[in-house]
């Protein structure tokens, strides 16, 4: 009982940090993309944040954040509710495969942003195709998906070390994410 209470308390405290950060990522993504873009392609801050947490915190946290982030994204788009949520949850879940692996440095997790961004966008494109949208696969991959994935790697360079630092603070007992 005591252990369960402690676990719940930890999760609640973690939510105090991660959910505002996730909300901030959503707000930045919908407001500053106009300025933070290259050739009208902007990074996906929510995806990068969720991926970072997946690599750091494991599948339970990953699923929770992907659910919240996906709902945020779904609510802000014009497509059917669930497309972004499901795509993000699958991506986050698959990313946790690396969570148990020991990362000698930050290069590998940062680089992982590229394949997982590709995967996330491919899942969305498949969902959109199934919803009736016509998809020019090669053109979209070339002009949107690959450039966005590269930008996500660049953003990961900032976000992942930041979250790692926060996580280390948690391990020292000063903060929990």
């Amino acid at each position, binding site marked *: 009982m005591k252990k369960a209470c402690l676990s719940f308390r930890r999760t609640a405290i973690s939510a105090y940090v991660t959910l505002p950060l996730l909300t901030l990522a959503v707000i930045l993504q919908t*407001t500053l993309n106009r300025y933070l873009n290259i050739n009208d392609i*902007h990074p996906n801050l929510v995806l990068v944040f969720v991926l970072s947490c997946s690599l750091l915190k494991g599948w339970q946290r990953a699923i929770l954040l992907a659910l919240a982030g996906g709902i945020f994204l779904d609510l802000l*788009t*014009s*497509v059917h509710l669930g497309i972004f949520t499901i795509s993000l949850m699958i991506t986050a879940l698959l990313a946790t495969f690396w969570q148990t692996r020991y990362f000698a440095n930050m290069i590998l997790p940062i680089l992982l942003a590229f394949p997982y961004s590709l995967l996330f*966008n491919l899942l969305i494109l498949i969902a959109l195709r199934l919803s009736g949208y016509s998809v020019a696969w090669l*053109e979209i991959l070339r002009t949107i998906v690959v450039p966005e994935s590269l930008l996500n790697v660049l953003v990961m360079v900032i976000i992942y070390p930041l979250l790692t630092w926060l996580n280390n603070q948690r391990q020292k007992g000063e903060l929990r994410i």
Partner: protein
Amino acid sequence: MLAIFFLAVVLDQLGYLSQIRTLAQATLRPAQGLVTGAASQANDVLDRRQTLEQLQQDRAFLQSEVNRLLVENIQLRELERENHQLRELLNYTRNNPNFDYTTASVVGRVIGADPSNLLYTIFLDVGAKDGITRDMPVISQRGLVGRVVEVSPTSSQVLLLIDPASSVNTVIQNTRVEGIVRGELGGTLLMERIPQGVTVSPGDLVLTSGLGGNFPDKLVIGQITEVLQQDLELFQSARVRSTVDFGDLETVLVLTAFQPVGYEEGMLKLQEDSN
């Protein structure tokens, strides 16, 4: 001593001491020069220090002036740009007096406030309280922007013309050929359902046809850039470049007086008209 002194005065008056005076002055001149130089240099140093302090004060003042003027300049440019936009919108409203307009500032991300790179919506800072309802057309001074898809009391979401879910009945200006302009994933426009056998050329202007009642007619959509024609297909299609720069949207107009009708209602209306 007094006697010698008075004697010297008298001799000086009579001009007998001029040689001695010259000799004394010549002897003292280098020392004078030295001291004068030193004094002058000291004076220069003091002057320079004062000048330096003055210059530093002037520099600080000028720097603050530069900053102030820079900010003022930016503000003026912003005002000029806003003024230009509003003038263009005003011209548009004057040229199209049959519509009521609500001016709205776009908030959030402009080219697709949508968080993904694949879909395109924007948010406006006007909503139901301002008379906005679903399906109202949204335009800019450059042409059709999209239509309102979601309305809250104080904000609304606009589906942009380039979103894949968007489709508009259109007509090519010079040939009056009708078609449907759809958005595509990636933010391009494709005009479909152009009958075979009609001539469509790059550069032709595409306008809304008003068919279906979702949009008013004669709103500019864009220009044809490429014709995609295959003999085996029932229809031709063409790529259209929108006249609106969706990456640069800041102020748009919502046509609040235009009452859109659904497609089915539009078709029924057409059938009734044809009967």
